[in-house]
């Protein structure tokens, strides 16, 4: 059996056993006719022509019917229809249905041809109608057997053709969906097969035996004498035994071949299923491929393919799930471990925090007391700042008055200085007059001296005048010294007054700054007093909140300890889960998923 490489010509290849079966059956029938000498002498030519015509008509009708039954496959093979999935499914259905149709077409050809020959042959040769009955009987004996042989030959080709069509673009599940295993006909089919395999040879042998017995009896009756009759018996027992044995052997061989073909047709898918199951059992899970069969075996094969696909999907999902579970479990273990240590740290921290909170509560109580004291101090500070501001304002007024007084003193000293300078000029003028008087007195005394005794009195007067002038000069010098001292004193007074003015200005500025600062201090003290009041109130609230916090911290501590215990249990559970995930992974890895998953 040679498989076509493509869909093209697949339909012709698929139905070719019909021709073979038909020709084989006709050859067998003609051999039987010649052996049994059904057509009389001289009618063989007409008989052969009739058989040939019947064979041609049978093959023609069968060919037309088969072409109609494989309409889409023919069209796709010849390229008249595209190889779409829908067409391929339809072609697949046709290929899967063709064996049974070939059976019926062959049987129809046999019965139709036999009926044609049985009706036409007596009319043409003017023979007895008993021969027609024997022709019908031969057709009944060989037709089903021949049709069964054709069926078994076509059914294997049908599987190969379906596999080829599926390879053209259909998955295993699509093949199963296109040809669902709905008919459960194995029992009926085996019954039919057994009936054909048993009854047809029996009818054939019965026919041969009866015909042979009748013919021998007729010859015995026609024979004259005992010797002639014994001769007929001896001829009947010796003649044609070989031919009859060959014919019977040929029929038996045909039956055995049919049985072998049936066994092969039945065992092939079962063996393939067994091999696949064994392979899967060993862990080699390949992508499912369809094992084509018929009836219950096809249902089993389809279920096996679906199971294989589902198993592949399940294993792939289990592998992914196992890997995900493994990863997640490892993360859970790590997280749980961190959480465990974190819970311990949290418990420890909460212990410390609880102690700190209690201490905080005590501190808050002290702070509340201190805040109250600070509030009192702030109020006293505010009052003191108010007094300080009043004093600073008074000080500033005094400084401004002092500045005005100093300015008046400075003006007076300047006026005094001017007067002293005027006095100095007057004294200088007096001094010049005294000096000139002294000089004049000297010259007068000189002249008196030079006059001798006459000028003595004049000299005395001049000397007296000179002494007066010198006294004036000495007095004016004393006055000049006093004026100088007064000038120095007034200069020092001016300098001191200017310094005092500057100091007073600085003091005034400082007093203004002090006043401003004290105003700021007063405002700050007022704000401080207000803030301290707020702090005191907030501290009292804080004290209440801290007491509640301490109580809550105790509750949190208890819950945290419970959480820590639960976390330890979770860590143990996660470890167990991780072990289970590893086991699951090992189990899944036992299966080797080859090709596309699912």
């Amino acid at each position, binding site marked *: 059996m040679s498989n076509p490489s493509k869909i093209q010509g697949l339909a012709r290849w698929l139905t070719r056993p019909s021709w073979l079966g038909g020709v084989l059956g006709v050859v067998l029938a003609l051999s039987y006719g010649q052996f049994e000498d059904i057509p009389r002498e001289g009618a063989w030519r007409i008989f052969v022509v009739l058989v040939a015509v019947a064979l041609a008509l049978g093959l023609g009708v069968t060919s037309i019917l088969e072409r109609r039954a494989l309409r889409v496959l023919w069209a796709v093979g010849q390229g008249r229809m595209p190889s779409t999935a829908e067409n391929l499914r339809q072609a697949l259905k046709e290929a899967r249905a063709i064996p049974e149709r070939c059976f019926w077409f062959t049987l129809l050809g046999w019965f139709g041809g036999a009926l044609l020959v049985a009706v036409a042959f007596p009319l043409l040769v003017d023979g007895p109608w008993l021969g027609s009955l024997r022709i019908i009987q031969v057709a009944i004996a060989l037709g089903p057997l021949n049709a069964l042989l054709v069926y078994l030959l076509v059914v294997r080709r049908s599987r190969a053709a379906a596999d080829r069509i599926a390879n053209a673009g259909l998955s295993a599940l699509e093949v199963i969906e296109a040809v669902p295993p709905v008919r459960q006909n194995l029992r009926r089919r085996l019954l039919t097969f057994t009936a054909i395999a048993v009854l047809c040879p029996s009818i054939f042998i019965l026919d041969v035996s009866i015909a042979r017995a009748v013919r021998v009896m007729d010859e015995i009756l026609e024979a004259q004498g005992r010797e002639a009759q014994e001769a007929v018996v001896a001829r009947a027992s010796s003649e044609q035994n070989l031919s009859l044995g060959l014919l019977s052997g040929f029929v038996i061989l045909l039956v055995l071949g049919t049985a072998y073909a049936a066994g092969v047709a039945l065992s092939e898918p079962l063996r393939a299923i067994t091999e696949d199951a064994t392979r899967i059992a060993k862990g080699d899970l390949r992508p499912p491929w369809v094992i084509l069969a018929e009836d219950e075996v096809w249902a089993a094969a389809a279920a096996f393919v679906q199971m294989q696909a589902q198993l592949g999907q399940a294993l792939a999902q289990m592998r992914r799930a196992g890997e995900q579970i493994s990863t997640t479990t490892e993360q859970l273990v790590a997280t749980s471990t961190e959480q465990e240590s974190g819970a311990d740290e949290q418990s420890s921290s909460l212990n410390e925090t609880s102690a700190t909170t209690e201490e905080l509560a005590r501190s808050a109580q002290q702070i509340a007391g201190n805040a109250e004291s600070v509030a009192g101090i702030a109020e006293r500070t505010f009052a003191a700042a108010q007094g300080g501001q009043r004093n600073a304002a008074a000080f500033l007024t005094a400084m401004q008055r002092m500045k005005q007084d100093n300015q008046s003193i400075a003006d007076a000293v300047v006026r005094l200085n001017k007067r002293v300078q005027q006095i100095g000029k007057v004294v200088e003028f007096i001094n010049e007059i005294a000096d000139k008087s002294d000089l004049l007195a000297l*010259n007068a*005394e*000189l002249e008196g*001296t030079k006059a001798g005794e006459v000028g003595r009195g004049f000299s005395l007067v001049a000397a007296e005048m000179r002494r007066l002038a010198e006294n004036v000069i000495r007095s004016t010098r004393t006055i000049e010294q006093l004026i100088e001292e007064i000038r120095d004193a007034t200069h020092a007074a001016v300098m001191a007054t200017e310094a005092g003015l500057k100091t007073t200005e600085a003091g005034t500025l400082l007093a203004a700054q002090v006043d401003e600062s004290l105003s700021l201090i007063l405002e700050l003290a007022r704000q401080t007093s207000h803030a301290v009041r707020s702090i005191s109130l907030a501290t009292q609230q804080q004290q209440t909140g801290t007491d509640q916090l301490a109580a809550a911290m105790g509750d949190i501590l208890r819950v945290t300890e419970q959480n820590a215990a639960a976390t330890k249990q979770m860590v143990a559970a996660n470890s167990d889960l991780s072990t289970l995930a590893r086991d699951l992974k090992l189990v899944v890895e036992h299966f080797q998923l080859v090709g596309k998953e699912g």
Partner: protein
Amino acid sequence: MQGLRVSGILLCHAGAHRIAFPAVDVAVIDAPGLHAGRSRSARQAFGEPAGASRVLLAPSGETVGVDTLEIDAELHRVLPLPPVLERVAGGSLLGFISARGVLWPLVRLVEFERYVAGASREAA
């Protein structure tokens, strides 16, 4: 010169030094401001810086400045000079007189002014 008597003497001081001029040699006693830059100072004769509060003006126009002066109208005997001192002070020294309990060198005003002028030029 022995037994010479003189009356009318100007007892002057030039710095810490005493010096006396005959009243007849002095025409006028002036203030220094009237002879600024033209009068000689008696201090220069003693090697001191110039300076004066009164200027003695000779009838021939010579001037000599002194710090103080008094006019003594008493008669004084002039003590003679030893010969070794005759040419001292340019020959202006007449001798010494005793007045107010101390000795005073008596010099002629004109010669003394010339002597001071010469001493000033030498010093310059």
